[in-house]
């Protein structure tokens, strides 16, 4: 059970975005993708989501080539929180969240699920407001709720699911950023594989089970945060001096320049 990139390459014209990439995501783990701007992180997510078709190699979901799965079937297995959020018409927050409902189950279960998700995500006070009037961080909290609803199941499910997130906390304040990352850890516990593109290496070190460091469309390092976040390697990839030290009081890695 896994979502796999198998020797996947992708390029636009002569610009190679991803080169012969191997990657495996399993349900229950939180995988962070880090790397400088333009490293190919978002492209990886779009390939995993089935939105971009690899030019070489294959994307496999539960042993099936993702290109052979219908959009409807795929929507039951993975959701993708992207960075864009501009919406032309006036929808309420509740309506936006409800768009995440993809299952063919009765309306009562649906409204129960929406209520539960709105409470869990702490957006009850926003739920009747117009989405367009929210701040960037609030909009991200709502989009996160919509993605959680897409993967919500009425009872403990053993069907693997995958949640992809592209800088989900970019506009959030610290409180909600930590809240979302804590939430991801819980989400992973429901047999969901989480892949997140994140820039903050301290948070990456603290919340991720596994990290992939990318540069120029290639994997530079992969493994536990302590292994990947090597100061020499980071300084090289980000082309700026970076220090990494272990803080025993906090029991975590600290990355700083």
């Amino acid at each position: 059970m896994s979502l796999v990139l198998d020797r996947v390459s992708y390029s636009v014209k002569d610009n190679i975005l991803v080169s012969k990439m191997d990657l495996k995501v399993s349900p229950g783990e939180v995988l962070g993708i880090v790397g400088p701007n333009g490293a190919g992180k978002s492209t990886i997510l779009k390939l995993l989501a089935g939105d971009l078709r690899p030019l070489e190699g294959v994307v496999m979901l539960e042993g099936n080539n993702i290109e052979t799965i219908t959009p409807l079937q795929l929507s039951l297995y993975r959701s993708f929180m992207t960075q864009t959020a501009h919406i032309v018409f006036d929808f309420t927050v509740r309506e936006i969240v409800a768009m995440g409902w993809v299952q063919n189950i009765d309306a009562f279960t649906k409204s129960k699920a929406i209520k539960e998700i709105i409470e869990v995500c702490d957006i009850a006070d926003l739920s009747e407001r117009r989405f367009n009037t929210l701040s960037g961080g609030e909009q991200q909290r709502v989009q996160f709720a919509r993605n959680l609803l897409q993967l919500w199941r009425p009872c403990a499910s053993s069907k693997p699911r995958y949640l992809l997130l592209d800088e989900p906390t970019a506009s959030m304040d610290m409180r909600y950023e930590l809240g979302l990352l804590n939430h991801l850890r819980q989400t992973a516990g429901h047999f969901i594989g989480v892949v997140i593109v994140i820039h903050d290496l301290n948070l990456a070190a603290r919340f991720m089970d596994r990290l992939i460091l990318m540069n120029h469309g290639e994997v530079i390092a992969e493994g536990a945060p302590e292994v990947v976040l090597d100061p020499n390697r980071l300084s090289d990839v980000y082309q700026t001096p970076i220090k990494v030290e272990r803080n025993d009081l906090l029991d975590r890695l600290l990355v700083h320049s």
Partner: protein
Amino acid sequence: MMRAWVLPSLIGVKFKSGKFVGLGVLLVASFVAGLSQGAVSIPLLGLVNGSATELEQIVFAEIRAPRVFLAGFVGASLALSGAVLQGLFRNPLADPGLIGVSSGAAVGAISMIVLGAALSIPDWAEAYVMPLAAMSGAMAVTFLLYSFANYFGRFSVVTILLVGIALNAMAGVVIGLFQYVSDDAQLRTLVFWLMGSFSRAQWASVLPAIGVMVGASLVLLRQVKNLDRLQLGESEAYYLGVDVPRAKRHMILCSAAAVGAGVSLTGIIGFVGLVVPHLARLFLGSSHRLTLAGSVLIGASLMILADLLARTVMVPEELPVSLVTNAIGAPFFLWLIARAARS
């Protein structure tokens, strides 16, 4: 499909269904007013209990009823197509008339008026050739618009209007050419097209057109969830399970078919597809389940009332109904632009 009509909160259900009952009453009242009022006023009860004169019966069955039904269905189709195009292009100013879809349909229909004689079309097919030509014209323009949009990424509010101006101008050239080469009789028919009117409604041509409009509208109404999800972006709609190319194809083909079938009988009637969806959104909400259903009800009611006004305001003369819709729609359009400019 039914499940989609149940709202999550019970209060919401009561609130919204009350408004829908109101719109239903408005539609029935429009029908009654449209059927009974006119140059000859007809007692509807008299038709039922047999006290109506023969003249009244003939006027009702052969002139009044087909006209009012055509107005209702054309109004509903234009409004629904407008709402779908606005959703598809994610653009509040999309309207079949403004962006050139209606002009495309008119070019198709007019080419048949002028060139039809040379094509020696059999009599039985004549009633169908014009709607088909109009629908093809509407589809050609919609596809052109869409491939433009795909090529340049998402259409901005302004770009789509500018492309609409260009397409309308191109259609104007073709229409002008046809006007130039047509004879007197053809010219009279042509002018009727450009004005937009329900005065030529006859059952023989109205019924097939209504069939097309109903069929296309049913497909469009099934797109409510897809339209909602498209508002998040095309990729996001795909992540939520929408087969985006297929949904777009259905929306483009069916909105063009609905507009084309109407235009082939009535000519160009402007602004209904722009104004009505906005009224529906203001009144009911932006969720397409509400917007689309509301557009159908409001579009049919308003068109019947506009036609009633057009044919009663200066009896025995008749105004083209497009004068009425333009008189209401143009200021509304200005208001929309002002609102868009402010935000």
